[in-house]
């Protein structure tokens, strides 16, 4: 069964899918998987520090991971963070059409995002060096450097399994599940 993004059915089915995966998939979660994204969402929501630093922030942010078929990532991944005045309203995996409409889009190759989440690559420096691209109003994002740094730090504190660390068997399994989710939810 497939669901149209933006509908109540999509949201309901998405949350049910996430709940099942959180209950059945063993940790550490694979970066960018629905259960990883859901854990990330919860940690941001629980962060008082983020809440303070992002008090005036308005706008959606997308973390866009480019495909890497060799490592099992057959399609672009768009993680949409719905952030509003210090509150993280949601973090979802979304279809490309929705991801590309975000107010801010940070795009990078899988290896770069793995390095960010591993704590090995600082996002501001990565942008300066062209390792991560930023689309959006620089003047606004600059005022919230602390908040965006905190978002990175929260991700880096998570126990994460990276696609580059998977065995061939695990990678094939990931690939199949991702294809199934893509068919159902469009991402």
């Amino acid at each position, binding site marked *: 069964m497939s669901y149209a993004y933006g509908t109540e059915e999509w949201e309901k089915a998405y949350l049910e899918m996430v709940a099942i995966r959180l209950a059945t998939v063993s940790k550490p979660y694979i970066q960018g998987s629905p259960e990883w994204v859901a854990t990330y969402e919860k940690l941001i929501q629980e962060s008082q520090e983020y809440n303070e630093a992002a008090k005036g922030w308005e706008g959606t942010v997308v973390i866009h991971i480019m495909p890497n078929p060799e490592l099992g990532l057959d399609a672009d991944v768009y993680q949409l963070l719905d952030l509003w005045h210090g509150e993280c309203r949601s973090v979802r995996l979304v279809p490309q059409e929705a991801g590309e409409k975000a107010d801010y889009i940070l795009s990078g190759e899988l290896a770069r995002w793995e390095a960010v989440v591993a704590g090995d690559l600082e996002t501001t420096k990565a942008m300066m060096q062209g390792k*991560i*691209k*930023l*689309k959006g*109003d*620089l003047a606004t994002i*600059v005022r919230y*450097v*602390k908040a965006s740094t905190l978002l990175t730090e929260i991700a880096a504190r998570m126990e994460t399994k990276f696609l580059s660390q998977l065995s061939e068997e695990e990678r094939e399994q990931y690939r199949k599940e991702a294809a199934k989710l893509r068919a159902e939810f469009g991402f």
Partner: protein
Amino acid sequence: MRYGRDLSFIYNNPTRIIFGEQTVREAGLEVESLGGSRALIVTDQGVVAAGLAEMVQKALGRRYAGTFAGCLQDSGLHIVNEGAVFAREVGADVLVSVGGGSTIDTTKGIAVLLKEGGQLQDYAGYQLLSRPQTPHLAIPTTAGTGSEVTYAAIIKDWENNTKILFCDNHLIPNVAIIDPLLTRDLPPLLTATTGMDALTHAMEAIHSTEREPLADAMALHAIMLILEYLPRCVEQGEDLQARGQQQLAATMAGIAFNNTQVALVHAMAHSVGALFHVPHGLANSILLPHVIVYNLDYCADSYALIARAMGLAVPGMSNEEAGTAVAEAVWALTKKMGVPQRLREAGVPQDGLEAAANRSLSDGSIIYNPKPATTVEEILEVYYNAW
């Protein structure tokens, strides 16, 4: 800020640089080496009136396709869009900028639109381009912004009275011709303020949080050259040796900050530039020593390095004393060259400082300042001191 063991950086300096008197004559051959046959000169009316655009046109010969002379100080989104339309009409396949930073930045914008289409606003951000743009040969006529070797273009949005920053490695000009003859007739005050822009680039590259040794080498030598040759350029404009060395210093300072970014001085200068039309070099000149004083308790060792390059270091001098000496030397230099010392002299109203401080917080440069400047009050204090 000593280099730590965790130092890690990328040094990028791809521009082919051609230096020397009369090297503007190489323009035609350089256009061909870029694979072009129809070169559009992008410039401003002042450069045209000075006969410099004609020099380049002659050098281009059969490769000359036309001249777009609509550039203005601070450029403009509408100017870039007009330039791109004109470039398409004349079938340009190479762009040749002849002018100061605003002209070079305008040309960077045109290069993008010629290749990618759309509007320039679509490309606002960091490193969004994914391929080389229309080839760009930059011929600076000031010394200067260093824009001939940098990945940034600052274009004013005249409708919203703000400056938009475009940063991309694909914006860096392919070739730069640095010919002292093109700066010979620059008036003394413009020589001084554009020269101070270069000094600010060099000093900000050293106090930037992204500071690294290769850029430091460029910046320190630029500082030494500027100290020696900029006053000579101001006093004796026909001194082509001095003009040439000052140009090289500006280019070296550009290479430095292209790799390490600039910081609070530029954030504040951009703001008063956008709000009160203070020329960029003048704003930098006035603000630089005040920001050095502001930063002193965070990066005095960086200023101590600069003090040694300036010949100010005295045995037993503390880093803080060295930093103070640097600030005082900058004031002395600008006073000697007759550059306005205070923002009020540059037409900035006192009741406009708060708006400028607020705007500075949104300027990308600010995040690279060694001492955090995260509140309006912190920046306002520096503005008041400079006013």
